[in-house]
């Protein structure tokens, strides 16, 4: 085996220039592929992360009707019964984020606006997202407060400042009227532009009072200890919760439309990459073809003197694998610092494109993903290519007639 490796390795460097060109083509393909995949995945990871963080969570418990008809009327009762029903899963649950949310009109003496009012527990939100870090004026909420945080976009349109008192008018639970006056305790910048335009955060108790919905939640976000375990946890919890009253939704279900769109986009990028790889594969194939023709006599001689065809085929395969592997490793090594840099220093978009992104509710920032999948998937693709390309030399070695070949 060692001899086979030595033979393959030395054969590789018989025609240095050709090998370098081949390795370089693999190198650039891998570099490009990793960067483009990592860029794309990074953008999506960030979007998903934002959506999970600010709205959906990994897993949500809701009233059975709420997903189709989101209204305070379809809120659930977060009472002792529900709390004890969740107890058995405490081990897999990191923490819970209870929320009650609904639309409200918010007004000061200048204007009236519609906004999303999120009643939340300030302490659990701290674990869940970065509202507290993104306070741009005033202070974060305490659970007993009778005051609100408003998003920075909303503050701008209302021309409101910390200390102002705003008027809230909405509809409460089962048609009860909801009205209240709340002072602005702070202004928060929310990273999802769409949310930043019209969001109000209120302590849970105050919001339940406002909506006249004591002990009620529109959703109970469940954060699992291990996000990768969400699906399993959801299945387990489904057994403990009465399906007549409660519905469990994972982030995959909550973001289904978005994920579909993303999958399509990812697939389109893949097609582009596969075309690139195909070109590379043909390049390698050409190299192999000339390599084998040049060596016909030598191969015939080697078989004549007693090397098994299978051993010779292994040498050829090792050569192919080494050649492509060199390219892959070099490509991945070169891609790593690029990806690393743009992961920590995301590309800030500006101008037209940035506006478009903001319009679609996305932060105009494009970080690179550091996910190992980006690297591994290239290794996988290139391995497949090198094995496919190896078919030719293997076939050649097995089908070659030594006498005719040695006469060429």
């Amino acid at each position, binding site marked *: 085996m060692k*001899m086979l490796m030595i*033979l393959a390795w030395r054969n590789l460097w*018989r025609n240095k220039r050709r090998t370098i060109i081949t390795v370089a083509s693999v190198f650039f393909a891998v570099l490009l592929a990793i960067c483009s995949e990592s860029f794309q995945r990074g953008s999506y990871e960030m979007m998903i992360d934002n959506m999970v963080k600010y709205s959906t969570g990994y897993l949500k418990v809701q009233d059975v009707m709420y997903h189709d008809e989101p209204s305070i009327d379809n809120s659930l009762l977060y009472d002792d019964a529900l709390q004890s029903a969740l107890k058995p899963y405490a081990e897999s649950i990191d923490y819970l984020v209870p929320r009650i949310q609904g639309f409200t009109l918010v007004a000061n003496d200048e204007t009236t606006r519609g906004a999303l009012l999120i009643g939340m527990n300030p302490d659990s939100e701290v674990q869940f997202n970065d509202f507290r870090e993104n306070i741009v004026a005033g202070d974060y909420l305490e659970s007993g407060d009778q005051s609100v945080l408003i998003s920075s976009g909303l503050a701008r349109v209302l021309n409101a400042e910390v200390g102002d008192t705003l008027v809230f008018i909405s509809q409460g639970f089962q048609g009860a009227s909801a009205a209240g006056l709340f002072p602005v305790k702070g202004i928060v910048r929310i990273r999802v532009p769409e949310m930043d335009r019209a969001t109000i955060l209120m302590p849970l108790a105050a919001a339940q009072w406002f909506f006249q919905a004591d002990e009620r939640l529109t959703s109970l976000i469940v954060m699992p200890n291990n996000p990768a375990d969400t699906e399993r946890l959801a299945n387990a919890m489904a057994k403990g919760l009465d399906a007549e009253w409660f519905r469990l939704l994972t982030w995959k279900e909550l973001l289904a439309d978005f994920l579909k769109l993303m999958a399509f986009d990812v697939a389109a990028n893949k097609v582009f990459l596969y075309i690139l790889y195909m070109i590379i594969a043909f390049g390698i194939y050409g190299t192999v073809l000339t390599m084998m023709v040049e060596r016909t006599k*030598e191969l015939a*001689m080697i078989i004549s*003197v*007693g090397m*098994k065809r299978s051993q010779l085929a292994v040498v050829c395969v090792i050569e192919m694998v080494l050649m492509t592997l060199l390219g892959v490793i070099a490509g991945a090594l070169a891609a790593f610092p690029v990806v690393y840099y743009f992961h920590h220093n995301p590309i800030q978009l500006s101008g037209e494109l940035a506006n478009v992104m903001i319009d679609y509710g996305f932060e105009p920032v494009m970080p690179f993903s550091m996910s190992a999948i980006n690297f591994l998937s290239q290794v996988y693709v290139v391995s497949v290519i090198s094995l496919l390309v190896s078919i030719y030399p293997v076939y050649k070695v097995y089908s070659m007639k*030594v*006498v005719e070949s040695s006469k060429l």
Partner: protein
Amino acid sequence: MTKVIRTENLTKVYNHTVVPVHALGGVDLEVEKGEFTAIIGPSGSGKTTLLNMIGGLDHPTSGRVFVGDTEMTALKESKLIDFRLRNIGFVFQSYNLIPVLTAKENISFIMLLQKRSKEEMEARAIQLLQEVGLTDKADVRPQKLSGGQQQRVAVARALASRPQFVLADEPTANLDTQSAFNLLDIMQKLNEEEHITLLFSTHDQRVIDRARRVIKLVDGKIASDERR
């Protein structure tokens, strides 16, 4: 005397040509251990074809080839390669050596395929290099050797596996006179001192003069066979 090679009514017809070529037309040949035999004949008389049959590199159209007690023509391809490896040494006219291996590695290569021990390989490679007078070229790759030196390494390689006999198809064809004699001296010495059985084809009168037995092929048949 023990017979190393025996052919029985060996024929070879190339059918894939426009007119079928009868390259061998019934060759009966016996070679005994320690013989130093030249096969001569005009171009196209079937020398290469005969050596290929005896070496198990090609299958005859009819007839049989025995090496020792083994009917080589009855062996399957995979067995045949192994049989060649263990019993027959080859020296070709050119392209004898693996270009990426040094002279010594080329010699060891055969023994590696035979799974010999490292010590034995090393010792034998050094000994063979010495016998062909190339001790100083042990770590040189073939392209840095002259044609004659390459052929000498090829002879050493052919002997490395301790074969029953060595086949050489026009081993001196590409060599200048001096190198040809040099190679011949070595082959002759190996034959006389170590009783290596050598069977080679040649056009070269100088080589023919040194042979102990000369078989002449004409149109695929043995026209004369003289020992001297």
